């Protein structure tokens, strides 16, 4: 099947947002080919999912945030789109069938690096090399910008993805160096900023 990989534009935000919402719905069950534990559907690709209480609870940003944060003078992220020709549009009429979201980061050991935050291909377009092509494009863009490494995170139950990445020459920093990803957010972040006494 024919497809193109290109840099996203402001007009693509609507589709990127659509795919962000869908890609987050019941990740576990979708990967195992079962039923989504969030919306109880077997297949995905319907924007109604975004209205489901659990998913919309967790997604705090709106389409306009994506537009502002990704397409203004100082963008906080970059994105690329996978597009298919008219004759291969999805059942719902979408021709933008995959995306990747990344940004430039920095390693105090090696310098410029690129972080791949999201990589997603609609289920009916998988198995055609689109995911690999998206990742390859990020590698190209990263190298062109002077980056020495590409980092990303994978959930430990996602064996299929982990095996794919390992076969591409990636290595698991968490098990290799015993690194843990930590986060401070919401009320804890605000308390920290105020200098509240510690627990």
């Amino acid at each position, binding site marked *: 099947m024919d497809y193109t990989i290109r840099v996203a534009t402001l007009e693509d935000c609507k589709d990127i947002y659509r795919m962000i919402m869908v890609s987050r719905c019941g990740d576990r069950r979708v990967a195992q080919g079962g039923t989504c534990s969030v919306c109880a559907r077997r297949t995905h690709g319907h924007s109604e999912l975004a209205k489901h209480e659990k998913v919309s609870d967790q997604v705090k940003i709106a389409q306009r945030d994506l537009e502002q944060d990704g397409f203004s003078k100082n963008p906080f992220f970059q994105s690329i789109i996978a597009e298919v020709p008219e004759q291969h549009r999805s059942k719902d009429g979408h021709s933008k069938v995959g995306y990747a979201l990344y940004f430039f980061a920095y390693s105090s050991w090696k310098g410029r690096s690129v972080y791949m935050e999201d990589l997603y291909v609609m289920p009916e377009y998988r198995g055609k090399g689109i995911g690999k092509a998206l990742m390859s494009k990020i590698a190209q863009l990263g190298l062109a910008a002077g980056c020495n490494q590409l980092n990303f995170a994978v959930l430990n139950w996602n064996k299929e993805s982990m095996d794919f990445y390992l076969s591409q020459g990636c290595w698991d920093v968490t098990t290799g160096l015993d690194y843990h990803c*930590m986060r401070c957010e919401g009320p804890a972040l605000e308390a920290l900023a105020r200098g509240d006494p510690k627990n």
Partner: protein
Amino acid sequence: MANFILRKAEPRDVPDILRLIKELAKFEEMEEQVVLTETELLQDGFGEQPFYHCIMAEVPEDRRSSDGHTVVGFAMYYFTYDPWIGKMLYLEDFYVMKEYRGYGIGTEIFRTLSETAVKSRCSGMHFIVAEWNKPSIDFYKRRGASDLSHEEGWRLFEIDKEYLLKMSAK
């Protein structure tokens, strides 16, 4: 010795930034992994579009270290993006020289970082910690950080330049 100031890094701080990066890497037993040079740090941090930002901790002249340094701690950070919650602040390096610990410098650096995160409308601050680094894990957990590797099963992956080249050629 509660006397210290925190300030934004300037180009002249690059030698101290590299010195402290190497000291922290030595503590992590990874000193030989630091290949970054002062030239790269200067270009990448103080050019038209910086790849990172730094906060420096400095003590007065009369509190210089045994090797004559007044810059005794730093934090290196940059902004990232989570498509669910938006902007985030990523803490890449955070270090205070051994002889200057226990005086609240680390606490104040961390507080300043979180203030920067809140002012920049970030939804959170994230970073990685080595599993064996119990004192640091305790420091972060006392301040409300959660361990995403443990709680959600996230594993950090990396692809080095050699494989990036292979992938980009496919």
